[in-house]
């Protein structure tokens, strides 16, 4: 095996940062040889996860494996190698009137990463997670076999690989369903919400809207807790918007650009920013027509925004609570955060639909994502939140985890035994392992 130097590698939140070898490949043949030559490794796409799920001493880096294999415009089906980014896919399909049926908040993740984390978008309550739109995939198993998985063939493996965090093998390629669009604009309705109750009512009354998400202010107390902005979106039909609407959009674009100067990271700045954000909605519900990038990927406009948090990095804490416990639970969690004095920068709330595969994150209920700069006391505070979340029957998103305990993980993902049975079969020697999987005990029995 040739000698490859070690590099410092971290995922999007810059924590943890480790020395690792990044093994690249460009063809299926090279992938097979590579996997065969390594005794322990984990796939890594564009490193847009927050934490250690794609970190290990030896990393199989996929972004050079990025060819389109087939595009059927009539049937709206796309097949690509797994290292291709959603960005490249969108560049190719949008001009042909097609879009991804599910997309995360950034274009810069790979197809393989989107499947392995079974990512969700603003339409999860209606359209499910990314895996639901995967028709079939080719998996290179730790044993060196290439197997075709779908709902019809190797179905059990198929469901477990969607959300399987790279632990059952390397996804080589996938066929996915696309959706037709008539324009590149979204008709967005922004509604200011007084408090958490109001916000949740909005989510529930608008359950039939395609896209919904809310930004909420965690600093406000008492009856005002949870005031924020609720945003709904639908794809514009052709002819639905006029050039007048577009001009208006350019002038008064309601979209808040998420520019985050350093000062905003302290409480005063945060309050000012939150007020400013809230003001945009003060005027009452507002209709606007953002384009796809403004609506789905506002953070992509600020390259490397993760660096605002400095070299120490930050943590994103994303959990979901079952719907019946969400209202009470969110209040408890907010109270806890406020009492700790460690305030998150961004808080994004979303109502999710039911769960898919055994390790897939979404379950029916509310998910909240919080960004915290790393500082003393954070770890203890989050451990306390872990307890709250799991006592309420909730769970934490593996793609955003760098620190949860094995015990909490087991409580959050009760179907883990189903997953481990497959792991035992496909990877008895634990060839596929990440820092995260070792921490969480996500391994075949003899370890």
């Amino acid at each position, binding site marked *: 095996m040739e000698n490859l130097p070690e590099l410092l590698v971290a995922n999007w939140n810059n924590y943890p940062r480790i020395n690792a070898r990044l093994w690249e490949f460009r*063809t299926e043949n090279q992938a097979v040889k590579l996997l065969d030559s390594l005794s322990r490794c984990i796939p890594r796409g564009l490193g847009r996860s927050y934490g250690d799920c794609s970190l290990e001493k030896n990393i199989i880096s996929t972004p050079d494996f990025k*060819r389109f294999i087939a*595009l059927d415009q009539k049937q709206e089906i796309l097949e690509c190698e797994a290292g291709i980014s959603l960005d490249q896919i969108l560049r190719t399909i949008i001009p042909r009137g097609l879009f991804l049926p599910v997309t995360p908040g950034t274009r810069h993740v790979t197809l393989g990463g989107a499947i392995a984390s079974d990512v969700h978008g603003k339409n999860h309550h209606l359209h499910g997670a990314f895996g639901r739109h995967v028709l079939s995939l080719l998996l290179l198993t730790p044993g060196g076999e290439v197997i075709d998985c779908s709902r019809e063939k190797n179905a059990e493996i198929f469901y477990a690989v969607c959300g399987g965090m790279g632990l059952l093998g390397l996804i080589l390629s996938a066929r996915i369903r696309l959706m037709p669009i008539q324009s590149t604009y979204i008709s967005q309705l922004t509604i200011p919400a007084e408090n958490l109750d109001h916000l949740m009512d909005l989510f529930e009354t608008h359950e039939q809207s395609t896209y919904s998400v809310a930004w909420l202010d965690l600093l406000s107390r008492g009856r005002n807790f949870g005031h924020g902005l609720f945003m709904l979106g639908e794809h514009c039909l052709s002819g639905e918007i006029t050039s007048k609407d577009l001009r208006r959009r350019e002038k008064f674009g309601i979209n808040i650009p998420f520019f985050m100067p350093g000062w905003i990271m302290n409480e005063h700045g945060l309050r000012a920013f939150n007020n400013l954000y809230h003001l945009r909605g003060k005027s009452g519900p507002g209709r606007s027509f953002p384009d796809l990038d403004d609506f789905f990927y506002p953070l992509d406009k600020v390259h490397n925004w993760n660096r605002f948090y400095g070299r120490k990095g930050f943590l994103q804490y994303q959990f979901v609570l079952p719907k019946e416990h969400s209202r009470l639970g969110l209040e408890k969690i907010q109270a806890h955060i406020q009492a700790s004095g460690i305030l998150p920068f961004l808080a994004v709330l979303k109502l999710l639909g039911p769960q898919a595969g055994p390790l897939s994150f979404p379950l029916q209920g509310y998910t909240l994502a919080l960004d915290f700069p790393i500082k003393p006391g954070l770890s203890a505070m989050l451990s306390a939140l872990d307890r709250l979340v799991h006592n309420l029957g909730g769970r934490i998103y593996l793609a955003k985890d760098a620190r949860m305990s094995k015990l909490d993980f087991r409580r959050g993902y009760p179907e883990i035994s189903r997953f481990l049975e497959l792991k035992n079969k496909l990877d008895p020697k634990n060839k596929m392992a990440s820092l995260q999987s070792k921490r969480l005990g996500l391994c075949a029995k003899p370890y």
Partner: protein
Amino acid sequence: MRKTVLILGAGSDMARALSAELAEGGYNLFLAGRNVHELSKDAKDLEIRFEIQAEALYFDALDTNSHPGFYDHLNPEPFGVVAAFGVLGDENLARRDPLEWQQIINTNYSGCVSILSLAANRMEKAGEGFIVGISSVAGDRGRAANYVYGSAKAGLSAFLSGLRNRLCRSGVRVITVKPGFVRTKMTRDLDLPSRLSATPEEAARDIFNAILSNRDVVYTRWMWRWIMAFIKHIPERIFKRMSI
């Protein structure tokens, strides 16, 4: 109608990047090389991304007997031809092993002369087209480290210069590309100085721009033109003692 460009050695990293530039520029492509299995996947990828037509073809630069048949079968006849294949070889081995120096010379020099002569004759008749030969700064002056490779590239540079001279009046352009360092499979094991090294994408952009503009000889990265001008002017009695 779209014009077609034939890329020889289409699996080379520089060629792959150039294929994307050409496809984006609206050219259809023949991707020719030894690994047809991968080249056909590349072709499909380019077809989908850029809505052009691309086809993979088997081509071995060393098998010069096959070249006339290969060129005859191209349909449509290419408007442009890019010769990107090449081998760096093992210079130390080439001192002892005739097979090694023959492989270096036959690939980098004879292979190009063979296939580009065929292309030149067709294009001369058609009265249009372009030929791109990827030579090297190593051909500008022989150095102890890689003079067999360098001499083959020197031969190629002279061949391209003569071809350009011959075809100038018939409206066929000949472009000599002289890369300095490019980060590709060929140089994977070398420790390249970062300021002097191009990515395959940068090199491809330089080559594509040369095709669009009226350049005859292009160095990539650009500073190599001046570096080589300097190196060529070092008097031989000094140069022979140097180790660069």
